[in-house]
């Protein structure tokens, strides 16, 4: 739950952006789409874990 979560997402985003341009320039649009989706899935699994930790913390605090 620290800044490194943002940095991980930024790194994945930049890598996917570069790969996307690379694959589009070399004519493989479908593979570019695949890499974007794969990166999105990786980031989402990370983020969902952090979101559930946050909600557990808030549930404990406000005894919701």
């Amino acid at each position: 739950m620290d800044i490194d979560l943002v940095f991980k997402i930024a790194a994945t985003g930049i890598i996917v952006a570069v790969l996307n341009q690379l694959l589009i320039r070399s004519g493989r649009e479908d593979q570019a789409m695949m890499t974007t989706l794969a990166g999105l899935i990786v980031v989402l699994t990370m983020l969902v874990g952090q979101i559930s930790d946050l909600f557990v913390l808030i549930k404990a605090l406000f005894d919701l």
Partner: protein
Amino acid sequence: MLIWKAAALALVTCVIALVLKKDQPAYAFLASAAGAICLLALASQRLSPLLEWIHTLSEYGIAESSACLLQVLGIALIGQFASDLCREAGLSAAASAVDLCGRLLALLQALPMLQSLLASFSGFLQG
């Protein structure tokens, strides 16, 4: 101090989201959501002494209201957080829907307190 850490975190998140916005808007939104989550976690870790103080209110004979107040606070916090995330992503319809849900649930949570308030008012008026 905590405020410097929060400000730095917010600033870095803004820069990263803007860098990613042109090529990959989805990642820009995920980065800003992650930044918001980190800030909310930072804030809620420092929140517990305040909530203990709210519990001390129950010594003045208003026990059930402090618990209900806490729940309404939590619902408002999460509802506001979700609706602002939706609005930041550009989905104002979803944002207003989440807002409506938050207000509805908060009102439902506060209903017994309103009931006792009205009862005491009517008692004063007749008395």
